[in-house]
């Protein structure tokens, strides 16, 4: 019954937000620099929150990440492209909220099918990660191709910098997706099993 109480929901939500904050501020944990890139592991936290707590809480956890990366882009960037991309809240916040929401609903939909839990979790992880990557790429395309907006961001040659930014984000998203596909099932499977055993 504990897991259905509001106290539990508040606790777990708070702890997830704490993890997001730790990932943002502890070096080499939330962002792993690999050469000029900086891979993130934070989407994993959001996807796990979405699977375990549902789309709404997944969205909240994602939103906190978005807000932090928006603030970070101004004040504590981990990679040189961050200040160019994530200072725009539509690129930094919106896609992150949607990771949680989309992953949450995808997982709920998959549990109603006959697909094995492991596979559902892998699919959820991949879809969640790609939601982020595609939205960020799409937003960059929209914002930097529009000359007025590009100029406001201090970009005079939109096509070139767009390519650079998209290449960076694209390259990041592949290992990030793989990482999520490995880690999410590893963590969620035992937890889901545990939960089933308790509700029975």
């Amino acid at each position, binding site marked *: 019954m*504990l*897991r259905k*109480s*509001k*106290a*539990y929901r*508040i*606790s*777990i*939500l*708070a*702890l*997830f*937000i*704490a*993890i997001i*904050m*730790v990932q943002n*501020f*502890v*070096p*080499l*944990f939330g962002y*792993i620099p*690999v*050469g000029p890139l900086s*891979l993130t*592991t934070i989407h*994993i936290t959001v996807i*796990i929150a979405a699977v*375990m707590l549902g789309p709404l809480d997944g969205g909240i956890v994602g939103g906190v990440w978005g807000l932090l990366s928006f*603030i970070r882009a*101004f*004040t*504590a*960037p*981990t*990679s*040189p*492209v*961050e*200040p*160019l991309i994530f200072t725009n809240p539509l690129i930094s916040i919106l896609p992150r909220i949607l990771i949680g929401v989309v992953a949450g609903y995808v997982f709920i939909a998959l549990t109603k099918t006959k697909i094995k839990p492991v596979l559902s979790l892998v699919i959820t992880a991949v879809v969640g990660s790609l939601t982020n990557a595609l939205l960020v790429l799409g937003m960059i395309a929209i914002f930097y191709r529009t000359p007025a907006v590009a100029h406001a961001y*201090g*970009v*005079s*040659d939109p096509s*070139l*910098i767009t390519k*650079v930014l998209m290449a960076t984000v694209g390259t990041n998203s592949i*290992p990030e997706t*793989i*990482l999520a596909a*490995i*880690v999410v099932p*590893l*963590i969620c499977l*035992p*937890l889901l099993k545990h939960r089933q055993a308790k509700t029975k």
Partner: protein
Amino acid sequence: MNKFIFGQYLPGTTLIYRLNPLLKLITAVLLIIASFVNHSWIGFVILLVICGLLIRMSKVGWKFFLKGTKFFIYIILLTSIIQVLFSKGGQVYWHWGIFTISSFGIHIATLAFFRFLIAIVVLTIYLMTTDPADIAQTIQGICYPLKFVGVNLDDIGLVAAIGLRFVPTLTDEVTNIKNAQKARGIDFQKQSIFSRIKSSVAIFVPLFMNVFRRAEQLASSMILRGYTDGKKRTHLRQLKWSKFDSLALIGVMIGFCGFILIFCI
């Protein structure tokens, strides 16, 4: 051990610590906005002097402050270099393949560098001089308008407070798990992406397992200590908004408006 001072609270008693946290937050945000809409060099000089004064007032020491923010300043420098190389316009000084150095590129890159520098300094000071519990309450205060669309503010405050309370605990936990896996031969220095993925699995799984267990303990202890849904919470700490805070806020507002009028229009 920890080179990054970003986000770390250092207890102290100087004036800057005694100001109302909401006032400090407003001031910080206004300073950052001012630096981003500013286009003039004199404006930047003024903002940088203000930053310098704030660092002095916080009494944390220049050397320590520089050491803590060095990494981010270095990243911002890289961003500026990217901007220089990939922007065209005005007079072209150098051109090679896809790279161009032009007067326009240098101009916007320098502007960006100063803007981000100011933002880094301002937020670092805010976080260093404000008790995390006060930040939590300020967040709750900012969310006040949400009350009218049916959001339970006490819950937001509770989530923020518990969340902030557990940041140091979880940071320690990550360090402990990392140490334990290092002792089992994991090499976090390895550069290859595959080995990095492998080593993050060994940190993430134990961390989440512990978090779910902790949440259960936390929820039980909340219930046992009388937390029930929908009851109004009282607060042990009451943030005081003094006359001095009002005066300071008026001063900040006037300064901000003046700055915008002089340098940005």
